[in-house]
């Protein structure tokens, strides 16, 4: 059964149509990679899923529940949006850690603010945060502030922070593009280990080899459209569409 279904999402900014008729679905425990050239709408799509942008058209279902329907204002009530966006986690390109909190505090802040609703104890949240940092290989960095961490370490803290709320679907927006090449490996390793644990993920990336390895499904976007989708074998190794071929050729030329 699909955990996520996206139907006919459209989004425009001013006069520019940025997303056109975006539809796809994702099975629980699977990894979806979104590839495409700059400006093709990948970030905007992730932002729509996370309620940071409001699509003009379309519906989004998680489980069987309609969490967004552009035609139904009842699905867009601010108070409920706050809860509904917790189905998704988002890891930003430039981490966006909170500078005034330590690594551990970054991870535990949101769960602690939510403790009244979830009934979790501070000790429980703390222990959970530590376990997540350990999973990221950062237990010895728990008391470091973001500016004392390398980019790769910061991104791993950001991943732990997103996981702390146990989202159904974890989204990554080019998680390694802001990193020096020697630091991308450690972040990709962590994401790979999450995939092995059957974490449902959507990963926007320019790391073609990584996408081919980790993804169960690949979407190629261009000009706000999904041009091609399928398994990595289909889309990356044997693209059918001319635009996909061109994009990949350009990519592998440079790589």
């Amino acid at each position: 059964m699909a955990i996520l279904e996206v139907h006919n999402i459209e989004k425009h900014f001013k006069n520019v149509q940025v997303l056109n008729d975006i539809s796809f679905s994702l099975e629980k425990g699977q990894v979806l990679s979104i590839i495409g050239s700059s400006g093709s709408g990948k970030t905007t799509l992730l932002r729509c899923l996370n309620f940071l942008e409001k699509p003009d058209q379309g519906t989004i279902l998680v489980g069987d529940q309609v969490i967004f329907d552009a035609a139904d204002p009842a699905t867009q009530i601010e108070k409920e949006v706050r809860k509904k966006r917790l189905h998704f986690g988002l890891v930003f390109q430039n981490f966006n850690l909170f500078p005034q909190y330590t690594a551990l505090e970054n991870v535990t802040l949101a769960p602690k603010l939510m403790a009244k609703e979830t009934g979790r104890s501070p000790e429980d949240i703390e222990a959970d945060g530590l376990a997540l940092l350990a999973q990221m290989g950062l237990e010895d960095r728990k008391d470091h502030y973001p500016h004392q961490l390398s980019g790769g370490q910061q991104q791993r803290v950001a991943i732990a922070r997103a996981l702390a709320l146990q989202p159904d679907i974890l989204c990554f927006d080019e998680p390694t593009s802001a990193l020096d090449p020697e630091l991308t490996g450690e972040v990709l390793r962590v994401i790979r280990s999450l995939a092995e644990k059957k974490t449902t993920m959507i990963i926007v990336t320019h790391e073609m080899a990584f996408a081919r390895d980790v993804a169960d499904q690949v979407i190629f976007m261009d000009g706000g459209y999904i041009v091609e989708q399928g398994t990595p074998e289909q889309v990356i190794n044997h693209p059918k569409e001319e635009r996909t071929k061109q994009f990949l050729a350009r990519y592998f030329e440079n790589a």
Partner: protein
Amino acid sequence: MFIHVTLSLLEGMWTAIELFLLTLLFSLPLGLLVAFGSMSKWAPLRHVSRLGHLPAALRHFRPISALTELVVWIIRGTPLMLQLIIIFYGPGMWFDNNIWAFGNGRMVACVVAFVINYACYFSVIYRGGIESIPQGQKEAGQVLGMTKTQIFFKVTLLQVIKRIVPPMSNEIITLVKDTSLARTIAITELVKAGESFMKSDGITWPLFYTMVYYLLFVGLLTLLFNWLEKKLDYFK
């Protein structure tokens, strides 16, 4: 004589400190309110536009923001001394109703003028601080399911404070010296206290002696701000 002058100046100093503290007490929070007002995005005509065709300038008109910015412009654009005179003498002169005619009336009028003036200056600093926080911080809070209030208090506020300490300290040190304007409406603050010895005893040194008081006060504040900056140095 020296002791007599010292004590008399201390009294003037106390008035200045009172004015200083009361001004901060009210203008710091009021300034934040003014800052929020000037950042208000409320544009009621946006909805009206569905009925007819309003020009874009009208559709984007934000009345709260426009009004606060007008007030801030007037207050920052005119001398505090003038504002003080208008607030103190205005009601009696134009409305035949001296609302300040009670025990501490002068001082209260003075505090009101200072609070309005400083709230406007502070609001600009607050606004700059708030707008300098990257959008990504707010968005990170949002995707973690935080409410607007939680984001403001748990994510943004401390970062804003860190950024506004230097400009705020400037403004607050200026306030120390602006308290001397209170003499415009015959409040015996420090400078007036020092000057009074020129008339009564024909000596000028008490007037210059007041500088010691100002310098000590500002020195203390400088230490306080340096300490605060150090305290906030643990993050970037």
